[in-house]
C-alpha cells in the first residue's frame, strides 16, 4: 500500500480525504505510483501530469521523507518508506504568483 496526500483541489475533484491509500503491489517508482493513482481515481488524469507529455505539470511538486522528488525521473525509485507505506508521498500545488 502506498499512501498519497493530495492538495485540496484534487481531494475535492476525487472526492477523497486528505490521504488516499493505493493498492499498489509492485509500485516502486513515481511513474508507477501515478499510474496507480490515476487508475484508482480516473478523474485525476491530466491534473498532475500533462496528458500529452506525461510529465509533471509545472506547478505540481512531489515531496516525501523530507525530500523534494519533483525533479527526479519518473523511472527513479521511490524512497523505501513510501513503498512500504510508512511515509506518505505528498502531491503539492506549488506556490506560484506574488
Amino acid at each position, binding site marked *: 500500500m502506498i499512501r498519497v496526500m493530495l492538495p485540496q483541489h484534487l481531494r475535492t475533484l476525487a472526492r477523497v480525504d486528505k490521504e488516499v491509500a493505493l493498492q499498489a503491489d509492485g509500485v516502486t517508482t513515481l511513474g508507477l505510483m501515478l499510474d496507480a493513482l490515476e487508475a484508482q481515481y480516473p478523474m485525476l488524469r491530466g491534473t498532475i501530469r500533462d496528458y500529452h507529455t506525461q510529465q509533471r505539470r509545472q506547478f*505540481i511538486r512531489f515531496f516525501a521523507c523530507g525530500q523534494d522528488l519533483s525533479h527526479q525521473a519518473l523511472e527513479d525509485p521511490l524512497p523505501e518508506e513510501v513503498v512500504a507505506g510508512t511515509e506518505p508521498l505528498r502531491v503539492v500545488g506549488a506556490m506560484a504568483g506574488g
Partner: protein
Amino acid sequence: MTKVRVLVGTHKGAFILNSDAKREKWDVSEPLFAGHEIYHINGSPADPNRLYAGQHTGWFGQVIQRSNDGGQTWEPVGNKFTYEGEVGTHQWYDGTQHPWEFKRVWQLTGSLTDPDTVYAGVEDAALFRSTDGGLNWKELPGLRAAKGNLWQPGAGGMCLHTIIFDPSNDKRIFVAISSAGAFRSDDTGETWRPVTHGLKANFELPDPTAEVGHCVHNIAMHPSRPNVLFMQKHWDVLRTDDAGENWHEISGNLPSDFGFPIAVHAHEPNTVYVIPIKSDSEHFPPEGKLRVYRSRAGGDEWEALTKGLPQEDCFVNVLRSALATDTLDECGIYFGTTGGQVYHSSDAGDTWAPIASNLPAVFSVEVQTLP
C-alpha cells in the same frame, strides 16, 4: 412556473443565479468549483438540466464538469483534448511557426437536439466534439486545415470562443477565433472555410483580401434568421445577411470601435446589443460610463442604455461571453463585468439593476429560461 437560471463563470468559480419570471428577487448560489477559473458554464439547448462547465487552473489544468440535474450535483467527465493527427504549427508572434499546444477550454456549446453532444472551443484554437456527454472528445481537424498555419495568437491567446449552430440546417456551424477570424462548416464540422469577406483591419492586415488574421471577438444570431449574423470585432461592429459570405460595418454612432460581446433580442431579430469598450490597452468603458448600446434597426443607429448602470468612475470590462438574453415575453438582458457585477434588465435594456455586485471577475454569462 417559469423560472430564469443564470449561469455565471468567473475567475474563481461558477455561480448560479435563480429567479422566477418576475426577475425581481434573485438567489445567488454558493461558489461552484471554488478557486478555479470557469471560462464557460452552459446548458444544453436539448435538456436544460444538462449543464457543462469548463474548470481550469494553472496548477491542475483542464477539467470538464457535467451536471444532469440543473447544477445541483456535478461529476467530472473527460478532459483529454488531443489534436488529431500531426499536431501541426501555426504562426508565432515572431513570424516563425509554432506547434499547437492545448491550454484550456473557452467555450462549451451543446447540440440543439442531443444533450450528449457538446462542442468545445479551445486554446490553442481548435474545435472538439463529444457525443457521449463529455466523456470522450474528438477534434474536428478540418477547421485547422482552413489556413491554420497562418493563424497567430493575439494578446488574449489563440482561442476558439464562439460556436453557433444554424437551427434551420443541422450541417451548418459557425465558429470564431480570436486573431484568426470567422469560419463556417456546411458538413457538420468536417470541412471549414473562412467567412471574412468585408472584414477590415487596416493596420494589422494591410492586405484587404486577407481571409484569416481578423480579430473577431464575438458573433450572434437570431434563430429565426440564421443567415443574418452580427459581429463585434476588434475594430467595429459588422453584419452579414448571407451567412458570412459578405460582411458590412454597422457601427454607426457607437462611441468606440471596440468591444467584446454582442447579442440579439430574443423576439426581435433586428434588435442588437453591444457594450462598447475603449480600445486597445485600456479596455474599460469610454468616459467611465457603463453603457449598453441597442440598435432596433439591425445596426447603424444605436441608443445608449444607461438607466441603472454606473455613469461615472466605472472602469470595468465586459468580456466576450458575458452578455446573454432570456426568452421571456419581455426579453431579459444580462451581462457580467470584470469587477464582479452581474446586471440584468427585464425590459429589453431600458432599465438595469444588479443581481450580484461582488463576485470574482466574470468571464461568461449564460441564461436558461425554464418552463
